[in-house]
C-alpha cells in the first residue's frame, strides 16, 4: 500500500476554502503535524534580502517586503529570522511582532576580522512580520506603543546613527494605509512619500534613505514557476507513492489519473507550454504569486469535477476508474481550472489570468477539422492519431467518439448533446495546446488556439532575441511601425519605412490626423531610428523611437500591445473590446513622441522664413502615403 499522506497534504496547496491570512504558517504547522516536508525552494530574491542582515551589510538598513498575498513575504521573514538565529519557538508563536538583537561593527565601513566585542555595537531588529495583523483594524485607534514604534521607524530610516532597524512585511495597500493613519509628523510624511515613490516607480532604494524596499510582485512569474515546479515534482512524496507499487486500479497505479497528471507535468513540452503562459502573463503586466503557482500545479494534478472540493483524494481514484470518468481529470483542463465551478474559478487569480488567453474557445478551421473530421482522413488522420488516439487517458475515448458521431450525423438534436460535445472540444483544444510539438507549431497554427495569435512570435522572435541583445527581424519591426502609423494617422496607411507623426491641427489626439509633423526613419539615419530592445532595469521589452542620439521615447511593448499593433497592421482593425485600452495607450505614446519632436525642433536654428509650410497626408490607392506640401505666403 503506498504512503498516501503526501497526497492528503498536497490538498492544502490547492483551491480549498481556507483562511488566507497566515497561509504560510498554516502550511508549516500541518506539515509538522503530519510529518511531511512542505514544498520548498529558494525565492529568486532570497539571497539578496537575507544579505541585508548578514555580513554583506555593514551599515544596518531597514527592509520592507511588500507584494500581494501569496508572494512569500512571511516565508522570507522566516528565512531572515533563521539566518539571524532567532528562536524557533518564538517564531512559532502567533505574535505578528518580534524583536531580535544583532550586532554590527562600530566602524560602519568594514566587518572586523576579530570577534572582540568592543568593536561591535548592538542593534535591535524589529520584525513586523504581518503588519495587517499588528496594526489596528480600520477605524480603530493606534495603541500608543505601536504608534510610537512606527514613528521611531520613520525617524530611523533617515537617521544615520540609528541603533534600531525594522523588517516589515505588508502588502502595499496596507502599508500606505497604515502610514496614512499615523500622526502626521514630518518624518511620517517623508516616509510615506518615499514608500509611494518606490512603489509607483518600481525602485528598491532612494539615496539618503536607510531603507531597502522589495516589491515581491515585481518578480518574474516564469522564474518563480521554474523553481516551484522543480520543487513540486521532486518532492519525495511522489517517490514514496511509486515505491508503494500500487495495483492496476489503485491510487498511483498505471490507470490512476493523478499519476498520469504527475507524469505529464514532467513532460518537457507540457512544462514549456505552461511556462510560456506564465511568461506571457509577465509581459502583460500580470504577476502570478507563488501561492497561485502552487495552487495551479496542485489543481492540475488533483483536479476532477466530481470529487469533493473538485480535488481527488486517494479514495476517489478507484471509483473514478470504475465510473470511466478518468478523462474528466484531464491535466489539460485542470490547468485552466476546468474542474472548478465557473464562480469559484473567477475568484482565483491564476485562473482569471489564464482565462484571458481563451484557450479552448479560440480555434481555427484547421484545428477543428482535425478534431471533428480528422479520424480516417487522408491528410488529417495522422494528426488525429498522434494527438487524440495515442493519448490513452485524455484523448479520444469512447465517449468522445460517440459524441462526435452524434454531432456529425446530427442524430442528437437536443441542446444537451451538442453542448456536451462542445465541452469535449474545449478540453481537446486545450489538450492540443500542450501536445502540438514545437516543430509543428507553425504548420498547425498553435497560437491560433489563444486570443493572442502573435504570442508565439512574441516569445520566440522578440523576447528571446532582445533578451540576448539580438536584433529583431526587420519584417516584425516594419509590421509594428505600420500598425503605429495607422493608429497615429487614422488612415489605412501601408508605409512601414518611416513612422508618421501627424496631428489634426487643433488636437494632437484627433482620430484622423492629416497634418504631418515629421517622419522618423526606421533605419538609422542622422540619429533617427526605431528599435526593439530589452530594458534590463524594468525587465520590459520596449520599442524605442529615436529622434536624435540623445532624444528618444520608450514604449513598453507588452504582449497585448504587440498583438494590437500586429492586428491593426494586418487586418486594419480589432474587436472593440480589447482595442480601447491599447488605443488610449498609443495616443499617449503619440503625445510623448510629439513632445520629443518639439524638443528636437527647439534645438534647430529656426529659419526666419516668411512662408508657412504645411505637409498634408493623403493616401494613394495602394495605401501609400502621398504627401502634399502647401505653402502659404503671409
Amino acid at each position, binding site marked *: 500500500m503506498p504512503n498516501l499522506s503526501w497526497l492528503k497534504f498536497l490538498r492544502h496547496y490547492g483551491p480549498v476554502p481556507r483562511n488566507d491570512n497566515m497561509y504560510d504558517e498554516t502550511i508549516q504547522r500541518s506539515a509538522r503535524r503530519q510529518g511531511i516536508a512542505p514544498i520548498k525552494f529558494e525565492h529568486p530574491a532570497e539571497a539578496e534580502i537575507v544579505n541585508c542582515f548578514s555580513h554583506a551589510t555593514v551599515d544596518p538598513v531597514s527592509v520592507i517586503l*511588500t*507584494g*500581494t*498575498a501569496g508572494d512569500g513575504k512571511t516565508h522570507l521573514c522566516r528565512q531572515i529570522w533563521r539566518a539571524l538565529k532567532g528562536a524557533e519557538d518564538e517564531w512559532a508563536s502567533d505574535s505578528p511582532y518580534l524583536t531580535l538583537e544583532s550586532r554590527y561593527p562600530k566602524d560602519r565601513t568594514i566587518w572586523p576580522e576579530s570577534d572582540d566585542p568592543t568593536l561591535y555595537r548592538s542593534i535591535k531588529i524589529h520584525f513586523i512580520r504581518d503588519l495587517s495583523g499588528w496594526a489596528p483594524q480600520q477605524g480603530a485607534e493606534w495603541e500608543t506603543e505601536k504608534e510610537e514604534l512606527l514613528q521611531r521607524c520613520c525617524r530611523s530610516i533617515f537617521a544615520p546613527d540609528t541603533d534600531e532597524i525594522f523588517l516589515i512585511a505588508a*502588502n*502595499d*495597500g*496596507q502599508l*500606505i*494605509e497604515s502610514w496614512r493613519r499615523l500622526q502626521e509628523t514630518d518624518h511620517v510624511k517623508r516616509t510615506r512619500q518615499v514608500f*509611494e515613490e518606490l*512603489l*509607483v516607480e518600481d525602485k528598491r532604494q532612494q539615496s539618503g534613505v536607510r531603507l531597502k524596499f522589495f516589491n515581491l*510582485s515585481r518578480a518574474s512569474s516564469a522564474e518563480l514557476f521554474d523553481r516551484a515546479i522543480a520543487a513540486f515534482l521532486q518532492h519525495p512524496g511522489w517517490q514514496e507513492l511509486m515505491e508503494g507499487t500500487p495495483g492496476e486500479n489503485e491510487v498511483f497505479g498505471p490507470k490512476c489519473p493523478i499519476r498520469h497528471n504527475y507524469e505529464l507535468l514532467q513532460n518537457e513540452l507540457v512544462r514549456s507550454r505552461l511556462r510560456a503562459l506564465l511568461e506571457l502573463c509577465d509581459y502583460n503586466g500580470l504577476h502570478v504569486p507563488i501561492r497561485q503557482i502552487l495552487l495551479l500545479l496542485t489543481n492540475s494534478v488533483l483536479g476532477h469535477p466530481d470529487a469533493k472540493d473538485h480535488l481527488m483524494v486517494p479514495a476517489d481514484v478507484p471509483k473514478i476508474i470504475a465510473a470511466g470518468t478518468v478523462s474528466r481529470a484531464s491535466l489539460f483542463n485542470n490547468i485552466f481550472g476546468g474542474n472548478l465551478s465557473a464562480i469559484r474559478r473567477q475568484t482565483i487569480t491564476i485562473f482569471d489570468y489564464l482565462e484571458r488567453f481563451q484557450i479552448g474557445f479560440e480555434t481555427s478551421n484547421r484545428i477543428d477539422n482535425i478534431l471533428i473530421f480528422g479520424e480516417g482522413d487522408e491528410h488529417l488522420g495522422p494528426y488525429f492519431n498522434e494527438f487524440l488516439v495515442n493519448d490513452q487517458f485524455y484523448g479520444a475515448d469512447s465517449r468522445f467518439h460517440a459524441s462526435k458521431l452524434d454531432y456529425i450525423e446530427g442524430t442528437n438534436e437536443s441542446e444537451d448533446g451538442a453542448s456536451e460535445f462542445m465541452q469535449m472540444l474545449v478540453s481537446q483544444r486545450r489538450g492540443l495546446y500542450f501536445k502540438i510539438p514545437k516543430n509543428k507549431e507553425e504548420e498547425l497554427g498553435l497560437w491560433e488556439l489563444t486570443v493572442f495569435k502573435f504570442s508565439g512570435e512574441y516569445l520566440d522572435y522578440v523576447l528571446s532575441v532582445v533578451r540576448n541583445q539580438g536584433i529583431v527581424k526587420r519584417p516584425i519591426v516594419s509590421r509594428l511601425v505600420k500598425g503605429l502609423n495607422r493608429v497615429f494617422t487614422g488612415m489605412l496607411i501601408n508605409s512601414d519605412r518611416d513612422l508618421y507623426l501627424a496631428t*489634426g*491641427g*487643433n*488636437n*494632437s*489626439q484627433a482620430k484622423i490626423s*492629416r*497634418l504631418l509633423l515629421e517622419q522618423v526613419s526606421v533605419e538609422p539615419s542622422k540619429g533617427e531610428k526605431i528599435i526593439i530592445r530589452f530594458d534590463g532595469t524594468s525587465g520590459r521589452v520596449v520599442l524605442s523611437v529615436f529622434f536624435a542620439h540623445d532624444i528618444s521615447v520608450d514604449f513598453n511593448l507588452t504582449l497585448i500591445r504587440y498583438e494590437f499593433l500586429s492586428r491593426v497592421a494586418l487586418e486594419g482593425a480589432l474587436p472593440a473590446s480589447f482595442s*480601447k*485600452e491599447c488605443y*488610449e*495607450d498609443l495616443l*499617449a505614446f503619440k*503625445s510623448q513622441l*510629439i*513632445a520629443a519632436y518639439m*524638443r528636437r525642433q527647439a534645438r534647430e536654428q529656426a529659419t526666419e522664413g516668411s512662408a*508657412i509650410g*504645411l505637409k*498634408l497626408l493623403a493616401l494613394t490607392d495602394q495605401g501609400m502615403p502621398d504627401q*502634399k506640401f*502647401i*505653402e*502659404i*505666403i*503671409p
Partner: protein
Amino acid sequence: MSAQLQPLLPPDTLEQSSSMWVDEAIWGHRLYDEQLPWMVLLEFLNVFYHEVEKSRAFEEPNGLNMLKYKAAHRLYLRNILFNNPHLAEIRLNYPNDSNRWDEWFKRMKSATGITHPQFTYLKVHFHSFDDFCEVVSLIRSTSLEVNSNKRWTSKFVFPYGKECLYEDLDNTATTNDRRFFGRTGELLYLMLCRTQHKQALLTALTSRLSMTDSTWNSIIKCLQPTDDEQIGGDRANAFLPYAHHPSFDELAEDWLAILRLNIPGFDVFPHLTNLAGLHLVKYQLGVSRQVLGMTSPLSLVCEVVAPKKTLVREISCDFYQENNLLPAQAVEAFITNIEMGTDWQQALTEHDAFEKCKKILQDKARWGEDYDGSSDPQQLITSLRQAAMKRHRQHVANIHRNYGREIGLVSKRGTIKLRYAPTDALLKTLLFANVENRIELHQLLEKLHRRYGLVFGDKEAERVLAKDEFDKKAFQANSRRLEQRLASVGLLKRLSDGCAYVINPYRVEAG
C-alpha cells in the same frame, strides 16, 4: 455654500428692456441653454482678448457689471469657410488655375453681408487654387460643431488665436444675434473677474495663449483682407448678481490647474470648456440651493455605467431629478420672498394696495406693466408666478440638462431616464484638474466629492444617503468600475489589492 446670498442690483445704465427680471436677478443676465459650453468659451475669448488689448482684463474698472466690449465680424473669413459650397465643383469643372480663381471670385461677388466683396487678396497668399482649397477644407474640418446644420453665420472656426474670434450674427450677417452667443460667455468672464485668483489666472491664460502654435492663426489671418475693419457695436448689459461666490473661485482654481499642465497646444481647450460647463451647472444649482435656504452641500451621485441596471443608477436618476427641479423651486422661492417681504405686506394694508403691489413687482421683477387681470394683489402675484415659471422653463431651466449632457456629465446611456454618468472625456478633465502628480484613488474620490459634490464610492455615498438607501456593496462595485475605466484609459496604476494610484500623465515636472 450656506452663506447668505447678497445679490447685487443691476446698475442704472443697464438696458431697461421690458422683459421680466427674475431668472436674471437670481443667476444673472444670463444663463442661456442654447449656448452650449463651446460657444460660452468662444464668447468668453472674444471678451477676454478685447479686454486684454485694453489692458484691463479681469478688472471691472468702471464698476461691477459695467462691461462694455466690441467683437469682430470677420465676414470675409466666414464667407470663405461656411458660405462657399463652390470649391469642389470649381476644381472639377475648371482645369486651369487662373480659370478657377476667376470663376470663384465671380461667384463670391454675392458673398453675404459684405458691401462690394472683393476676394482677390487671397491670390497672393497661395501658389494655387488647389492649395487654397486644401487649406479651407483643413480649417473646416477642425471648426467647431463641424457637422451641425446651423446657419452659416453661427458657425465658428476653432479658436486658434485672435484672428479666429468673431461674434454670432443673424441670417443676413448684419446684426449680432443672441442665439448662440447668449451672454453666458460674458457671465463666465465676469465670474473670473470676481475671483481672488484673477491675477494668477490672467498670467496663466495669457502665457498659455501666447505659447500655442501661431501657425494656424497666421493662416487664418491670410484668409482675411488686411482692411477688414467690420466690427460690431458696443456689447454691454451683461450682469452677474454676486460680487463673490465660492463657485467663481473653484472655477478659477480648476482652470489654473489645467493651464499649469504640460498638455500640448490646443488640447487644453476641451478641458477648459468642460470645466466652464461644469461650474456653470454647479453655480446654477448652488445658487438655487442658497435661495431655497438649503444648507447641505450639493450632491451628484454618479453611476459608472454598468452593463445592467444597478442600485446606483436608480439613486443617480433620483438625484438628477431632484437637482433638476432646484432652479424652478428657486424661482418660486424668489417670488414668495417678495410676497412675504415687508414691502409687500405693508402695501397690502394700504388702500391703494394693488397699485403699490404692482409697483413693487415692477421694481423687483420688471414685470406687471402689461398686466390686465383683476386688480387683486393675490391675483397679480399669481400671474407673475405663472409667467416667471413659463419663461424659466423655456431656457434657464434647461441648463442643468443641456450643459450636463454636453460636457458628458448627464447621460441616458442604457436607460430612458437621465442620470449622472460621466464620460471618459469628462473623467479625464476632472482628473487633470484635481491630480497634481498622483494620488490614491480613494483620495481622488474624496476630493471630487468635496469640490463638486460628485459621489462615486461607498464612503462618499454613506455620507450623502439615508441609511435605508445606502448599499455599501453597490457603491463599492461602482468605484471598482471607475477604477477599471481609469485603468483602461491609462490613468491608473494598480499596485496590489486595495491600493491604486491615479496618475496625471501631464504632471508639471514631467519633461
